[in-house]
């Protein structure tokens, strides 16, 4: 199946419906493994048991940025190729991304309380993630406020691309400004500095959450395509002018 065929909404719909159960299953299994491993992971000599928060905090934090990346690619599709499937992908991703960002914020501050002695600190990393969250909310508001989906899609695409500037700022904020937050230790040049006993559960959880995102995203895209069909049908009923007598 070629990419152009895939980009046909009907084709996409049937494909998504076929692979969704498998994806859901894989997600469930991997999540179970990841959770088991994180439960079994040893305590950190500095952080104690709170290091367990890492296994959910870090995947959520990564995904919060990754989802914006997905939306940015979709936005290019909207603006350059004007492809309706790109609109659908961008719209469906926003609430999921917002949820991950919210979780990154909450788990982070729940970790921050024992580690730094405060839930919240206005430093660059935390602040830029909060801005990301606000931008997710703004995008969702935009999608909801405008009925005409293609109109909303183009506006949202411009905004998404402008907001993408925030992603490198989040990623590198810990290097550019000295903050409370940890610098990157897993994904950095020259290999990971994390111990294997933490690294493996973390990576399993990260993959599991990514699968979770893909599953949810496909399902939400399917809903969105159906919603557009619904709208098109309603529009069809409402058009067809009648000439005056």
């Amino acid at each position, binding site marked *: 199946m070629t990419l152009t065929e895939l980009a046909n909404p009907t084709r996409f719909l049937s494909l998504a419906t*076929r692979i969704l159960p498998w994806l859901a299953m894989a997600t469930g299994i991997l999540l179970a493994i990841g959770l088991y491993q994180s439960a079994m992971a040893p305590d950190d000599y500095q952080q104690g*048991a709170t290091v367990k928060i890492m296994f*959910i905090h870090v995947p*959520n934090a990564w995904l919060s940025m990754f989802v914006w990346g997905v939306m940015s690619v979709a936005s290019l599709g909207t603006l350059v190729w004007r492809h309706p499937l790109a609109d659908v992908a961008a719209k469906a991703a926003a609430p999921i991304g917002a949820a991950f960002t919210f979780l990154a914020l*909450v788990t982070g501050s729940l970790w921050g309380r024992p580690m730094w002695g405060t839930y919240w600190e206005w430093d660059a990393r935390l602040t830029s993630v909060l801005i990301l969250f606000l931008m997710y909310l703004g995008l969702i508001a935009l999608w909801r406020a405008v009925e005409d989906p293609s109109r909303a899609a183009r506006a949202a695409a411009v905004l998404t691309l402008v907001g993408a500037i925030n992603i490198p700022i989040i990623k590198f904020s810990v290097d550019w400004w000295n903050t409370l937050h940890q610098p990157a230790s897993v994904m950095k040049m020259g290999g990971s500095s994390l111990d294997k006993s933490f690294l493996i559960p973390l990576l399993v959880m990260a993959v599991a959450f990514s699968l979770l995102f893909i599953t949810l995203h496909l399902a939400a895209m399917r*809903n969105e395509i159906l919603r557009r*069909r*619904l709208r098109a049908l309603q529009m069809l009923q409402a058009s067809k002018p009648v000439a005056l007598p």
Partner: protein
Amino acid sequence: MALGPYASFIVTSYALVAAVVLILIVWIAIDHRRVRARLHELESSGAARRSGRGATDLT
């Protein structure tokens, strides 16, 4: 598995993640049901799609 003095923080964060993920799943499922129900409604009221296929056909 001993969680130490900060057990409540750890448990809360895991519980929150579970809750939010569950909400997402439920929301998407309900959304799916609702949209399909309304499509069925429209179809049975006679607004057929041009392609002749049912609008709610997924495969």
